[in-house]
């Protein structure tokens, strides 16, 4: 055949090349690039804060409610703490570390938002795949339960869960997982229902593959893209939620500053010092928007690629 004449490199494309390929998609879309740079900005800041912050974020050794100055670039809050340091420190809990309960003060890598999303992705896709691929009663029941969960106003759920289990990073992660899972599940389900009509699934079935193999080896890899994009969006939602909780005063516990909580505290003397409110507010907004842009851009590119 002529196909033989078409010569292509027999060597596998190396992992790096693959990664670079997928990265290059990002730069195709301006939206994604902008989004990513916004996110990167905070990630980098977070890493820096691990080793260095201008001042001790929790030490109130400045004059209260000051505007920006040489020593406090962003000014100080109502307790005379350096806002910049607090902002930087605040990123850690969201993105970089999760503090385990107990006085030992041990913390594991991966921020609360990240773990929460990972949680909901895992839980959601397991449920969704089962509902979508198996259909029938599985579908009925799983969807019923998820509907119940969705019907539950998130915030109420947060409140109740936290009222129930008390504050703490793990609790927040749990809350995010529970509230996020139904959405992921719905997505996974619809993807599964679409993919399961493909012939290669039929082929797997005629090989007598078992259900789990089909769900996780045949279907999941092809659902990965959309799920990851969705995940990215959810990191945004998670930060959103953490902020809200913090604002309601039931978010991540001290000592680490929590952006939402910073807003909450600062708004009490909003008339005297607006900056203290603005900075954390801006921080949350920019990070969430960044993630959204990033995800949107990616999704757009992906759909265009399929076309």
């Amino acid at each position: 055949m002529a196909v033989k004449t078409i010569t292509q490199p027999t060597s596998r494309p190396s992992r790096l090349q693959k990664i670079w390929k997928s990265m290059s998609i990002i730069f195709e879309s301006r939206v994604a690039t902008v989004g990513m740079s916004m996110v990167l900005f905070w990630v980098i800041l977070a890493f820096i804060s691990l080793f260095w912050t201008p001042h001790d974020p929790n030490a109130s050794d400045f004059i209260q409610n000051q505007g920006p100055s040489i020593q406090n670039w962003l000014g100080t809050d109502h307790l005379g703490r350096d806002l910049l340091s607090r902002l930087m420190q605040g990123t850690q809990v969201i993105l970089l570390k999760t503090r385990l309960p107990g006085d030992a003060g041990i913390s594991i890598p991966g921020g609360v938002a990240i773990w929460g999303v990972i949680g909901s992705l895992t839980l959601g896709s397991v449920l969704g795949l089962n509902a979508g691929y198996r259909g029938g009663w599985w579908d009925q029941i799983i969807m019923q339960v998820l509907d119940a969960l969705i019907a539950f106003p998130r915030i109420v759920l947060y409140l109740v869960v936290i009222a129930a289990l008390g504050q703490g990073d793990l609790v927040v992660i749990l809350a995010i997982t529970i509230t996020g899972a139904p959405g992921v599940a719905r997505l996974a389900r619809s993807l599964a229902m679409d993919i399961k009509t493909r012939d290669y699934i039929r082929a797997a079935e005629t090989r007598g593959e078992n259900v789990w193999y089909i769900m996780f080896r045949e279907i999941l890899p092809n659902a990965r893209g959309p799920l990851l994009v969705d995940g990215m969006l959810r990191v945004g939602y998670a930060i959103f939620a953490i902020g809200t909780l913090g604002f309601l005063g039931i978010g991540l516990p001290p000592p680490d500053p929590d952006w939402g909580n910073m807003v909450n505290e600062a708004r009490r003397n909003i008339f005297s010092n607006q900056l203290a409110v603005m900075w954390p507010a801006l921080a949350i907004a920019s990070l969430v928007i960044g993630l959204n842009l990033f995800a949107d851009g990616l999704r757009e590119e992906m759909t265009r690629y399929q076309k």
Partner: protein
Amino acid sequence: MTELKKTPPVLKLEDVAVAYKVRGGEIEAVQNVSFEINRGETHGIVGESGCGKSTVAWAVLNFLGANGYVKRGSIKFQGQELVGVTGEELRRLRGDQIAMVYQDPMQALNPSMRLGDQMSEVLTVHRGMEQKEAEKRCIEMLERVYMPDAANVMKRYPHQISGGQQQRVVIAMALLNNPALLIMDEPTTALDVTVEAAVLDLIAELRRDFDTAIMYITHNLGVVARVSTRVGVMYAGEMVERATVEQIYKNPYHPYTQGLIRCVPKLGADKAKSVLYPIRGRVPPPDNRPVGCVYGPRCDYIQERCREERPRLRQMPNGAIVRCHFAEEIDASQWTPSEDIMPPSVEVKDVVSDPIISVKGLKKYYEVQGSSLRDVIGLGEKRYVKAVENASFEIFKGKTLGVVGESGCGKSTLIKTIIGLEDSTSGEAKFLGFDITDDISKRDESLIQELQMVFQNPDSTMNPSYTVGQQIGRPMQRFKTTPKDEIRGEVVKLLDAMRLGENYYDRLPRQLSGGEKQRVGIARALASHPDLVLCDEPVSALDVSVQAAILNLLLEVQQKFDTTLIFIAHDLSVVRFFSDHVAVMYLGQIMEIGPAEAIYTPPYHPYSEALLSAVPIPDPTAVQKHIRLKGNVPSAINPPSGCRFHTRCPRRELLPDGGKVCELEIPPWRDAAEGHRIFCHLPLETLRTFDPVITQPTEGS
């Protein structure tokens, strides 16, 4: 009547080029296409997918999307230049003077609007007609296209009528304003053979009555032969040959045209007597077409000149217009295939052992949920879709059973049941003595690996996220037919058998063409050395040239591994070519079964006869009996009593009292000959009296 006046063409394209702007430059999808269409003429445009057929159509309507535009040339409609016409002026032309019908009517109709409104707006908007009046006209037009109870259809929504009817609605809609030019883009591709035939008749009739100029785009050589007066053959965005339909089929000049015609099996041809020659390679993508003749790389007669210089259209003595440097020299009759496309030599072995698979009275019913309150709660009485009814047949080792029938006839369900994707409702099915009535979960490994399947759609037959190697290797490691470390070797062997090199091992599906994917699909099916392979329309989604290659491949494989095949297809000529035995199914019921040659010659089952008379034959001179089925295929939920075909059977009248018995009693199996059984009330004598459906006046040519 005397044709005294020479009228100007309705549509005239002069070397048109259409380009699409893309990232970093632009792509010329279509290059220097020129042709003209006169009143009351159907100009066929034929070619493989990706040859820019549709692009031409869209260019005429100036509907090329945001990034497409006509780069060169002129498109004259009724003497008026269309290139550059926009806005109001264009809007007036569309739907009024130029109308279009395209593939898949379901998509073309607005799901949430009543058909009546969708039709009548054409009149109300263009002619400012009153709604009432407009609807009256629509109903007339619907009746004109033989739509049963037209007035009622007006009130319906698209999803409530059958595909054939939808297409009729679309056609009626197109004709409402009596356009001068009607563009049809694969209007019947989504339809069943018999429906297609009816629609084609309709089109021909309408052209005559309305004197409309029709531009008919299709990939199906048979259809072109039937509808068109002149044909343009497109390849890789260029029109390579243009001539009257007879010339094209009798003595094509361009090698590509010749190739195409060699690709398609003539109806009645079979693998023993005749062979198919694929065209090597594939259509070049628009962004890297060869410098010289676009067909060069695939051409058997390629010369230096073809590589450097792009040929231009030249007029041949007999009026045909060809884009080839050596059109005169090339003689199709002297052509001999080069070794790389040499088809396998097939010697038909005679039956040795007892049947490898035997099925008796196999039934498959699906339960259906009613929509009434009682059904939802579960009190409503159970209703069933009788997908397969009393299927009985047996196949011998190394033989092929072809199953033909229109969509919804239960052929897919039949093989799903055999391979175990569904369990059977009742009846017995034995494979080498093992019972295979259960679904796959209840079968043991060894049995599972003996039955494998090849699928229809090349784009979904492979899992996008695994390499060719992994996918072919999987069955081996699953069934442990080959030790882990030898798998790669085995896979490569298979790849070679598929005429794919080792370098395909690490490719991902998206790097393969449709044909290659299909080959991999076959390789995967063979990986576990099955005895029985079920092929579900393995070629119907492929271009004709590739089709031939795959068919040859399957034959070769069958020869090599002595595999038994069940081969489903809706294309009767392919089935005829490919199978030893053929079963004709209608509405879940096998109507006729027997040796291939027997099925395609009298005695016929009335349904088989109707099917045959509907197949479009790639030969304009062939004379074909004109039998058309009335009505639609009835619902399988409560199929007609007695003979399921009686509601549409054109031969009932031959029975006393117009075939009452067909409604009352289930017909008997009549043994026409060794292994040839017909499921009909008509006595064999009568069936024998039917004369053959197709008669080629020029045999053997």
